[in-house]
């Protein structure tokens, strides 16, 4: 075991990308260099000459570094592209939510200024819910855009990122499901209450929603555990 050779390769690989491929290349080079070094020593070469010969036989390893790194850049471009797309979707969805609220507000104001006979606030509320379907679908779609994380670079850091990404993705789907559940609950609460006027009892619907949410969370946990 020649420490000088190990130090030499450590020095050369300082400039290499920190990938598993690079680590493996270094180990492969080291074992082959040591075999060569020992063969030279057994053949009667002096330690100094053997070291020089081995180092010169390694050649220009740096030209291999590019191929170990190349794939990272491509991945970044894809990620930036995806992020831009999702930002647009989220902005439009937020705009639509605000628009639906403005519709409700308009109907309420008109109702307070003049009486037409129809239940304007209720119609406004229904319209708001119908408009809200669109941005909710958009957000669910934008979450599905993520797809499974593509590991481009075979490193421990990437493995951690994959895990982190997947748990983040699960969380965002869970949040979307939660949002849909609670908006539906609110709609149901108002519709049933306005129709039956049984305000004293209709709040039970929120308890039912709480149970439903517990079930949803449990389902997600089970799926995570299975994966």
């Amino acid at each position: 075991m020649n420490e000088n050779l190990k130090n030499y390769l450590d020095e050369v690989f300082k400039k290499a990308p920190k990938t598993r491929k690079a680590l493996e290349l270094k180990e492969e080079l080291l074992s082959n260099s040591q075999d060569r070094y020992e063969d030279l020593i057994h053949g009667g070469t002096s330690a100094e000459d053997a070291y020089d010969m081995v180092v010169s036989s390694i050649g220009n390893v740096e030209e291999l570094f590019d191929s170990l790194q190349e794939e990272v850049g491509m991945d970044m471009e894809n990620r930036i592209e995806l992020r831009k797309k999702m930002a647009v979707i989220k902005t439009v969805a937020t705009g639509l939510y605000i628009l639906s609220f403005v519709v409700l507000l308009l109907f309420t104001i008109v109702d307070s200024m003049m009486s037409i006979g129809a239940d304007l606030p209720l119609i406004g509320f229904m319209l708001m819910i119908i408009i809200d379907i669109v941005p909710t679908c958009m957000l669910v779609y934008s979450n599905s855009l993520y797809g499974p994380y593509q590991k481009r670079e075979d490193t421990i850091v990437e493995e951690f990122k994959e895990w982190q990404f997947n748990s983040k993705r699960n969380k965002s789907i869970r949040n979307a499901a939660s949002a849909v559940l609670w908006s539906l609950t609110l709609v149901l609460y108002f519709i049933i209450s306005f129709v039956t006027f049984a305000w004293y009892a209709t709040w039970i619907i929120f308890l039912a929603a709480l149970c439903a949410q517990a079930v949803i969370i449990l389902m997600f946990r089970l799926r995570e555990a299975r994966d």
Partner: protein
Amino acid sequence: MSITSDIIRGHTETIILAHLIKQDSYGYQINKDIMETTNHTYELKEATLYSAFRRLEQAEYIVSYWGNEGTGARRRYYSITDKGRKAYEEQKRDWESAKAMIDKLLQ
């Protein structure tokens, strides 16, 4: 000598495949065989050897596995695949026909 080196370098991958057809091997062993066969007139630089390994792996002509040497750094062994054997036969045929042609042209 430089023409000879150029021609040999152009066939680095076929030379590696030819070695692996006989048995699984690792970088230094292959290089040593090349040195001995050529009477120490030709040897591959490590960098050349490894870029050739990577290309062969990418083409699925060879696969690699790690040995478990007790002391020192582990060796990375390479093994030829069926696809690699076919590629070797093809490349060898190409070389035979090129050689025959050049022989005729230089007569």
